[in-house]
């Protein structure tokens, strides 16, 4: 398509490619909006906006963040609020994360919704290990985050003792809006850092 090696910059992080390197925190940047074609590049100009030049990682990050496939590791009350997040009123699909998978091999966002007991620990660890990289973990509610008010002999005091956590959501259980906020935060981070 006329994108010859010598015409495209070896490293896109040159001053000629504004916009893509530092998007504002809350701004979702689509490759098409970032006009990367350089003035005077006839081949590209001729094609108008049918072609966009960007970096591979950014396209991947863009696709990834808008198609998170969550695996709900729902054990308790929070799982019911997660149902509320998925259902029509709050509608998680507005953020591209509605395709709930129950196979860890098909999912990249684990939402730990509910109390994790010591008995559940080996299961949680195994499910997390079975997910493909890159993977993200939301710890939904205080039980998953810190054990909550179940400070006793059977409750794990926070899942971060076992698996890494990207975002903690406060609440017992958190309202659906908080879950959505965490997903948006995660998406912003993904577009900011590419991972």
């Amino acid at each position, binding site marked *: 398509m006329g994108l010859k090696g010598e015409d495209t910059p070896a490293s896109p992080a040159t001053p000629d490619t504004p916009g893509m390197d530092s998007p504002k925190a809350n701004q979702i940047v689509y490759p098409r909006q970032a006009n990367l074609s350089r003035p005077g590049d006839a081949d590209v100009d001729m094609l108008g906006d049918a072609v966009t030049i960007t970096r591979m990682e950014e396209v991947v990050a863009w696709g990834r963040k808008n198609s998170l496939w969550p695996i709900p*590791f*729902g*054990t*308790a*009350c929070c*799982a*019911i*609020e997660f*149902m*509320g997040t998925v*259902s*029509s*009123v709050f509608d998680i699909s507005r953020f591209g994360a509605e395709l709930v998978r*129950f196979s860890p091999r098909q999912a990249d966002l684990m939402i730990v919704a*509910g*109390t994790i*007991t*010591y*008995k*559940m*620990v*080996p*299961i*949680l660890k195994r*499910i997390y290990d079975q997910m493909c990289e890159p993977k993200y973990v939301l710890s939904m509610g205080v*039980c998953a985050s810190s054990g909550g*008010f*179940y*400070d*006793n*002999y*059977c*409750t794990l005091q926070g899942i971060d003792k076992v698996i890494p956590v990207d975002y903690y959501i406060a609440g*017992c*259980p958190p*309202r659906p809006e908080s879950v959505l906020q965490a997903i948006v935060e995660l998406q912003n981070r993904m577009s900011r850092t590419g991972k």
Partner: protein
Amino acid sequence: MVTTSTGIDFSKLRQRIGDGLLEETVLLPMPCVRVKRAALAETLQFLRDDPEFRLHQLSELTVVDMLYLREDDRFDVVYLLRNIPNELRVAVKCAIPEEDAWVPTAVGLWAAADWGEREAFDQYGVRFEGHPNLKRILNHHEFVGHPLRKDYDIYRGHWCSEAETLLDELELRRRRFPERRNRTDEDPGETMILNIGPSHPASHGTLRNLVELDGERILYSIPEIGYLHRGFEKSAETHEYNQVVPYTDRLNYLSAISNNVGYIKAVEELCGIEVPPRCQAIRVILCELSRIMDHLVCNGANIVDLGALTNFWYLFNLREKIYNVIEGVTGARLTNSYTRVGGLWNDINDDFVEQTRAVLAEIPQHVDDTLKLVARNRIFLDRTVGVGKISLDDAISYGWVGPCLRGCGLDHDLRKSDPYYGYEQYDFEVPVGHQGDSYDRIMIRFEEIKQSARIVEQALDNLPDGPFRADHPMAYLPDKQSKTYANIEGLVNHFKIVMHGITPPQGEVYSWTEAPNGELGFYIVSDGGMKPYKCKVRPPCFYIYSAFPHIVEGEMIADAVAILGSLNIVAGELDR
């Protein structure tokens, strides 16, 4: 301890076991007999079979650790027995010493004893001699000690490195029911062992099943529970009476207020507090709204298990609307913590009645839309009618209650047979199934949604005015200007409730309500202090789920999923 005449004649029992019967007493509100261990088996057998008693259900089995209450025999094993149609309840107690902590098993008498005894063994270390499979049920297999013993430190946890294989239980079950395998040496055939759960869409997050399959037919099923055992009872023992309320929210979290009310009713009976009519009516309204919410999710999820997703959104939208109403009253969507000893957290908000009426008007449409999609649907009928059947006798023996028991054809509802909070003044019907299959259980829940709506409507029409909490020193802080600063009694009362909290008299009580899943009982022992000495829940779905292998063995694996959904197993209540 309360020692009044029980009004029940135990002379026949006394004739039978002689001085094995130590004492006739009262476990509020039912009669209680205390027997020697040597006479325990015979007592239980007698109470089950004698035509005068015929206590065909073991409602609850638990142990009380009397470490701080008496010198000798450390444990009390408590059996709560029940005849459902006659509303007759009897408690049996047997004291046993710590160094020799065993009693004979009751598995041969009631199927419910199987899991009940396993739990008592797990939590207290009491052995039940003759139990076919006495192993831990709530705690994991690497756990050391028995957590509900009074000298067990609440913070002492144990890591679990690996899940159990459960193959030992499978082997036991094979030996116990060899005929189900239907194999001969000439035709050994091939079977497959499959693990389902606990992280599986159809296992509600925390249930695990190991099944042995012949093709798609289940030969043996071994359920494992306890993945959400989060120590409700131990936590309750370390919190004041009102502080336990938030823990009860999280038992059956689909209908939190029902649990709040069930627990608080027990404490109030222990304290002898009668709540005013307005409080009763508000509790009834919110309990019935909770029942509707519970059934909506149960049926919605069950139909999803059958492969129909649309219904779930139809039903869940209605749930969201009820959330809005309940949030207005309690401030929370799901975990409400609305009740307090002697009343409620607060009165209802101004537009509550109006909002509730608006939601009630929408219920029929949501339910009918769903029923239009499923009631005459060939797939739905094929997969539910005649599937997951259980006979009435088996259901009673397994300790079934509530909609599941009514599905087997028994017309019994605690709101009718033993009304509390003025349920007798409301006009409603109790739907009853006739063959105890998944279809009956689902349809009963749909009907109960409509009946609960009727109750709420009537309660709103006749909502009494007046205070929303009892006029009792334990129910609320006395008014500062008119009482605390005005007279010495008010000041003392204020001081006592702030410093000592709520202190029910010494004694014990078992109190029950008709929760969405059936009889939700709370057995509370008080030592006169500000915290419960023991607080045991009788969770309806614990005993309902114990019958799961009995139902699904012989069924198709895909139907097991649908059957599980129709039982409405809520992990928080199951594992506590």
